[in-house]
């Protein structure tokens, strides 16, 4: 059943293919223009991840959930399918962003040998995973919100939650500065270098897991 539901969403997403090609072209031009190659993969990953979230809009416009619930499937499978799609989009977005950045940068180095773009693969991998982490956070917050309030209201709720999170981070930063708390920056740097990627991947898994549990609980009790 999940395969059928995935097909439904992928067919819906396929209407974005022209827009996606245009966006990728713009990203490539941006990479060439600014030489900020690490941003390319982050932007593409974010766009692909957001496109996956747009499938909720298609379901909402056509009130598909009511019909899908009448098919031989259940609420658990419907929630599971959305998470599979979103996780797939983040992985594909990350890989696509990484490959595109490498291809564009190498192509420019070949065409413009006098102005070489320095490709630091380690930094590029970390920034790609960082981008994937960012969109995972957005998806993990937004999916339960959409299941609770719908695609339109869910988006507003997401921005509210994001503002609260940013406010909390800034608040903590402000307190640390105000209270003159000493932070061992070197130790943090060394921890990030050693365990940064592992930390990002593990927190991504954790975010999706918590988000899935909350989403299912919300959708299970929701009346269509």
């Amino acid at each position, binding site marked *: *059943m999940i*395969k*059928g*539901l995935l*097909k*439904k969403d992928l*067919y*819906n997403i396929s*209407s974005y293919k022209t827009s996606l090609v245009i966006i990728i072209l713009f990203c490539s031009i941006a990479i060439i223009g600014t030489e900020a190659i690490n941003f390319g993969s982050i932007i593409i990953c974010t766009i692909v991840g957001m496109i996956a979230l747009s499938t909720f809009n*298609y*379901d909402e*416009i*056509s*009130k*598909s*959930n*009511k*019909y899908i*619930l*009448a*098919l*031989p*499937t*259940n609420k658990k499978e419907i929630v599971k399918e959305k998470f599979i799609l979103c996780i797939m989009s983040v992985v594909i977005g990350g890989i696509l962003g990484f490959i595109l950045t490498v291809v564009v940068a190498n192509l420019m180095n070949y065409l413009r040998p006098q102005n070489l773009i320095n490709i630091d693969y380690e930094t590029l991998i970390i920034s790609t995973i960082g981008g994937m982490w960012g969109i995972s956070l957005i998806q993990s917050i937004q999916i339960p919100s959409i299941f609770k309030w719908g695609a339109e209201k869910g988006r507003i709720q997401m921005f509210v939650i994001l503002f609260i999170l940013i406010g909390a981070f800034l608040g903590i930063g402000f307190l640390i500065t105000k209270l003159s708390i000493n932070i061992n920056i070197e130790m943090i740097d060394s921890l990030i270098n050693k365990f940064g990627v592992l930390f990002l991947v593990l927190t991504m898994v954790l975010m999706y897991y918590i988000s899935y549990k909350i989403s299912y609980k919300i959708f299970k009790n929701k*009346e*269509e």
Partner: protein
Amino acid sequence: MRLIMKNNIELKNVCKKYSGFELKNISFNVPQGCIVGLIGENGAGKTTTIKSILNITNSSGSIKIFGKDIKQNETEVKKDIGVVLDDSFLSEYLTARQVNSIMKDIYKTWNEGKYKSYLKKFNLPENKLIKDFSSGMKMKLKIITAIAHSPKLLILDEPTSGLDPVVRNEILDIFRKYIEEDETRSILLSTHITTDLEHISDYIIFIEDGKLVFNMQTENLLESFGIVKCSSNDFEKFDKKDYIKVKKGKYQYEVLTDNKENIIKKYNIKTIDKPSIEDIMLFYIKGEK
């Protein structure tokens, strides 16, 4: 030998409460080989009843499909059900070909050949977006999608609303053929276009304000009900138990009875009109007692 009729749907005391609306103790059966029409005005509770049967909404009471509790055997039972919902289907940004590809992975018994032959029969293009279909074409696609896996039970919510008489007739033909192919099949069809039911239904269930008003064989309903037209003075002679509802006009009273033989004999009535299902429904909704 007594024939035991099996039921594809059995509802017992189904209740559902929303703010401002309540479905109260709905009980009825949908026997095999029968088309059952669910009638009532908009907001009477037809869609809530269907949503309860399909476990889309959480209601109390007992709902059995093919003898099995829907809540405990939801996925298994739904494999043998075809559904048409008035306001809900897959996204309109899909094509009929993509619907086929999706449904192949939803139903194990999906018959691609049957689906495509129906598309051809009803001149539905495979590669056009559903959003560019007319209302009639959209409804035909919904119905074809509902029957292509040869389900034992069809549940249809307002399948003919907003359609012209030609398309409605074509759709009713599909239902007739579907039920003729296999005598263990059934259709539960909700509609407020009651003329459709006079031609195809075996039973009529009337729901009003969340309550079941009657559940009768269509033939009996049309045979036993009658409308007497009389003056206010003549109406005074009627015993309350002999009529169901009365519509009081300025010059004439119209009285609905469910036992026209009795009323003809008892009050020496010369002429009695045969009501349509719509007339009966209107009497129940607008008439007085």
